[in-house]
């Protein structure tokens, strides 16, 4: 089968690889009908996530048709149409039973590696480094799905792929980012990053009852999407000082909650500050360029909440702990516990409350994945989300 494989820093290529087979009794094999490139795939692409190997199949956002099930999978049948959550979760450990699926205690066969870098190991993720399991990803014609009795959600035939594909990651991730803000009604929410996750976090914030949403980015086309498709107030950080502007827009208070939907490869309008983290990251003195996180903390109102859903890998410098501590700010974060949200959000899609496909900008063939990565990386042609069709 064809698969998009990592070749080294800044390079992916379509390779012919063997088809997957059942390895555990609770596996299923899925013939992929749609798969997407995630912003966090760019972190892998750029070589900032450790323990990615040449030849690894990338991709953790995919859906398709079940073509084979292991002897212990009783809830799926060959022919079912499923969306697959990006975290691999067993459903029976203490973490899964508390709804913390991305922290599954059994799904990472390389827990020892993650433990060395992170203290304790999270669960496994499709196509997302060996530290997080060494699982083949979904930018391919077929994928093996472990714990298929827990993760995949069957979707009705009347909903096209594009409406449900993003249930695999970016929609639940954005939704969880908004949920972590503890919205009870009437809040002002600022969101750093108007990419797919950020845009869906903004929509979710409104769904949960926020009164105003502010979108922070540097690409006019993304800010336009935020304004026109979500109803957010745009803020271009290359044209203005974000902390100042947010203070000004909120009567001096600051947003009630701030969402970091940027993660480890942020940019800064000040060339000097940008160069500081860029230099340290390039020689691996820190793993992050955490401009968005620093700004989110500094901007947040006293006693507010900072929700981090952008992906980070290791260690950051100049963490504003003084601001966080002295101003009673709550920091909440996590890789999305997708399995917790799929049913809920599928229902919202079916009821027509939201159609997350508005973030999709490009549809390419799987064979064009390398083009898609390059286009997404360069933000060419107003790229926000690339969907690949095997």
């Amino acid at each position, binding site marked *: 089968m064809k*698969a998009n*494989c990592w070749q080294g820093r800044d390079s992916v290529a379509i390779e012919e*690889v*063997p*088809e*997957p*087979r059942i*390895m*555990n*009794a*609770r596996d299923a*094999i899925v013939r992929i009908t749609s798969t997407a490139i995630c912003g966090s795939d760019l972190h892998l692409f750029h070589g900032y996530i450790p*323990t990615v*190997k*040449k*030849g*690894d*199949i990338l991709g953790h956002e995919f859906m398709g048709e079940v073509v*084979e099930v292991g002897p*212990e999978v009783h809830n799926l049948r060959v022919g079912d149409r499923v969306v697959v959550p990006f975290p691999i979760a*067993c459903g*029976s*450990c*203490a973490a899964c*039973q508390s709804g913390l699926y991305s922290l599954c*205690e*059994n*799904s990472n*066969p*390389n*827990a*020892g*590696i993650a433990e060395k870098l992170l203290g304790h190991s999270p669960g*496994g993720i499709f*196509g997302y480094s*060996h530290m997080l*399991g*060494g*699982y*083949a*990803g979904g930018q391919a014609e*077929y994928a*093996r799905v*472990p*714990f298929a009795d827990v993760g995949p959600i069957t979707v009705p035939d009347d909903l096209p792929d594009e409406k449900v594909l993003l249930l695999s990651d970016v929609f639940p991730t954005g939704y969880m980012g908004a949920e972590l803000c503890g919205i009870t009604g009437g809040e002002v929410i600022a969101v750093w990053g108007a990419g797919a996750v950020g845009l869906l976090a903004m929509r979710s914030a409104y769904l949960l009852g926020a009164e105003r949403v502010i979108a922070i980015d540097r690409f006019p086309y993304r800010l336009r999407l935020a304004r026109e498709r979500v109803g957010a107030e745009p803020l271009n950080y290359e044209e203005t000082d974000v902390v100042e502007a947010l203070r000004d827009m909120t009567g001096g208070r600051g947003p009630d909650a701030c969402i970091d939907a940027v993660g480890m490869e942020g940019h800064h309008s000040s060339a000097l500050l940008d160069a500081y983290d860029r230099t340290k990251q390039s020689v691996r003195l820190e793993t992050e360029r955490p401009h968005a996180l620093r700004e989110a903390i500094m901007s947040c109102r006293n006693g507010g909440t900072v929700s981090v859903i952008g992906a980070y890998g290791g260690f950051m410098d100049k963490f504003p702990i003084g601001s966080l501590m002295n101003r009673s700010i709550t920091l909440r974060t996590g890789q999305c516990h997708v399995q917790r949200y799929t049913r809920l959000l599928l229902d919202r899609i079916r009821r027509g409350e939201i159609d997350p496909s508005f973030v999709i900008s490009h549809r390419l063939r799987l064979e064009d994945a390398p083009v898609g990565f390059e286009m997404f990386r360069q933000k060419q042609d107003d790229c926000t989300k690339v969907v690949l069709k095997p």
Partner: protein
Amino acid sequence: MGADVTAMGGAPLDSPAGEPRGRFLPRALGVLSLGLGAAALGTPGLVSRVIGVDDSALARTVLLRAVGVRELVPVAGLLASGTPAGWVWGRVAGDTMDLVALAVAWRDRRGERRRRVGNALAAVAGITALDLLAAVLASRAATSRRRAFRASATVTVNRPADEVYRFWRDLENLPRFMYHLESVRADGDGRSHWTVRAPGGRRVEWDAEIVDDNLSELISWRSVKGARVPNAGRVRFARAAGGRGTEVRVDLVYAPPAGALGRAVAKLFGEEPGQQVRDDLRRFKQVIETGEVVRSDGSPEGLATRQQLRQRPARPAADRAPR
């Protein structure tokens, strides 16, 4: 964990490292060192006459005092240390210096004094031989102690203690998650037959017996007398705080013999035996909670530290036939 091992169900291993043997000689030498040191410092005049160097002021005042201090330095180590090899080798070095000094004194003297120096030389030569013997024995004991693998690890399993206990008590389940075991056969009556496949195709087998078995709390076992690789193990089950499942704690000891078999067993456990027991327990948790050991393309054999260092690419393996 030394004390812990002997405490395993009150049933120590069959003296795997010859631990009690190497201790008498160093202690005796400690007492001798104390006596000689005290005499050299306390009555240098008498000592210098006895060994025939009372004609040298330098020997009487400076050299004998220095020798006395040197004799006293290792006393505490020799009397109390569990690993006295270094102290005894220190004595051998001191002996060598004394022999050289006395040989020089013997060459320079005539008559009665020469006879006394000769006697002292003979006595020191005797002590040197004893020290040498003690040093070799102590070093051997230290080496074999190093060869014993002691490893512990702990994991929390999301199941009640009695269920976790029952799974472990069926010893034939152990090879499902303890990768160094090829098989365990329960022979009834608390006896079992264990088989390990070590590197180089070597197979090591032994019989073991359950030493302690407290329902839902503890199981401990040890190889029966005559095993080529004496070993023992213990697993404890305790309710985790707040009812968060069961904390499982395992202690293992293997005391492989010297020689090729010992080296093979050492290789089996690798650099970090503790890491392997940890891997065992993670797989144990997977088997109990999910039904089997979880596999990925990078780690097709499932969780194992060695596998983590030699990952296959995260793609379906080429050596499998297409679906």
